[in-house]
């Protein structure tokens, strides 16, 4: 009988130790990831890490709840030998964390009572639970179970008609207006809705009543040729004397200067 219990204890301790080691490993890798790669991290991978940790905690819980596990509360750990000397075996076992098994570390590592704050909270919770009575507690448990199962069902069964229902609901609050889209695109594309400007001050004030630029540029070219001196006229002349320059691409700019000076050159040559 004793042997069987002992064997059970040993087996359950082994499995618990293995699970805790897994949890420690994944916590370590997660912390390393957060410290070193935090600018490259994406939310889905962080969620994966959290899911892994929660899964491992779950298995630890299952191991503890397993009927083959003896109650650890009935076990007592008594330190048999305390010494202030460094113990190499211990160092290896605990990965350099506990070098000395002495009077200082025993109260911390072998304690069985939880932290004072945790104890307070536990007391508070059990008092609360005792206060509300068993029927109310049962009802609360049932409501919680129902909510969880509803949520699980919704998450596990994505259906297209559900999507269309929810999108119909969301139509009440549209987040964009197609008419606005068209208006904005037209404004950016060709200035629809933006006031057309008069020609800027390069047109000299000596020509009042200058029509807006919807009438071609030739009239304005004349004023430029007239007022900015002979350069424009000369340039136009030169361009005219060398028609069809090889290798040059036709451009409307040159055409305009040509036409202005050809038709309305103020100085007849």
């Amino acid at each position, binding site marked *: 009988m004793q042997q069987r219990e002992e064997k059970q204890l040993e087996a359950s301790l082994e499995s618990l130790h293995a699970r805790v080691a897994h949890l420690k490993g994944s916590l370590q890798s997660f912390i390393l990831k957060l410290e070193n790669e935090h*600018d*490259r991290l994406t*939310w889905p991978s962080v969620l994966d890490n959290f899911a892994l940790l929660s899964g491992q905690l779950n298995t630890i819980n299952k191991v503890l709840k397993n009927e083959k596990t003896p109650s650890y509360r009935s076990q007592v750990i008594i330190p048999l030998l305390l010494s202030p000397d460094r113990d190499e075996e211990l160092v290896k076992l605990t990965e350099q964390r506990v070098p000395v098994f002495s009077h200082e570390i025993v109260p911390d590592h072998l304690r069985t009572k939880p932290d004072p704050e945790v104890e307070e909270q536990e007391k508070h919770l059990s008092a609360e639970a005792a206060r509300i009575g068993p029927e109310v507690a049962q009802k609360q448990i049932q409501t919680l179970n129902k909510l969880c199962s509803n949520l699980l069902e919704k998450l596990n069964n994505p259906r297209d008609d559900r999507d269309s229902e929810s*999108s119909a609901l*969301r139509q009440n609050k*549209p*987040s*964009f*207006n*197609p008419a*606005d*889209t*068209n*208006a*904005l*695109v*037209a*404004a*950016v*594309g*060709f*200035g*629809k*809705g*933006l*006031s*057309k*400007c*008069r*020609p*800027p001050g*390069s047109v000299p004030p000596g020509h009042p009543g200058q029509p807006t*630029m919807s009438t*071609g*540029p030739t009239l*304005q*070219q004349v004023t*430029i040729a007239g007022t900015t001196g002979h350069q424009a006229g000369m340039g136009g002349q030169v361009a005219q004397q060398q028609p069809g320059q090889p*290798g040059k*691409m036709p451009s*409307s*700019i040159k*055409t*305009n*200067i040509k*036409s202005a000076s050809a038709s309305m050159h103020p100085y007849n040559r």
Partner: protein
Amino acid sequence: MEAPPVTVMPVTGGTINMMEYLLQGSVLDQSLESLLHRLRGLCDNMEPESFADHELVYLLKGQQGNPFMLRGRRSLLHPTAPWHLRYLGQPEVGDKSRHALVRNCVDVAASHSLPEFLNEMGFRMDHEFVAKGQVFRKGAMKVVVSKLLRVLATGNTENTEPLSLSYLVELSVLAPAGQDTVSEDMRSFAEQLKPLVHLEKIDPKRLM
């Protein structure tokens, strides 16, 4: 008036002809926060950049065809930064299955004498607006969420009013011509922004 097609251009410089792949949509002001949160999660992890730009659009009207359009943009937040001059071609009428609007794009930096220079060349300012918003990046993709403001008095960027109650959302990629995988990536990114924003290719000629 259109720039000559790619194959006819003499190769004078070392620049590759870049195409801009574009998807556009809009989001109402009240849903802006949720969109920004989602973009912060989806896009590269960096502080989103805010910008306030004043864009002037210049037209050169030839005797034939459509006027030639150039866009000059300056930052209101960084007044000493150079101007940005951009040419956008007509959207390529390729196969309808391509998911993004593709057009030729030439970008250059310019000094602060750009408006006078363009005026001397014969361009006239057609319209101007102020755009304020934020820029996000994901790899080569750029998402710009901006509020367009109408300038009430020409040249006066202090006096502005919003054009509409929405923010314009644009997803764009600058890539050399011929890379059609780009539009696939853009489409899958746009899927992730639904149903907050519907990014789609909108042909501006349709809205004229």
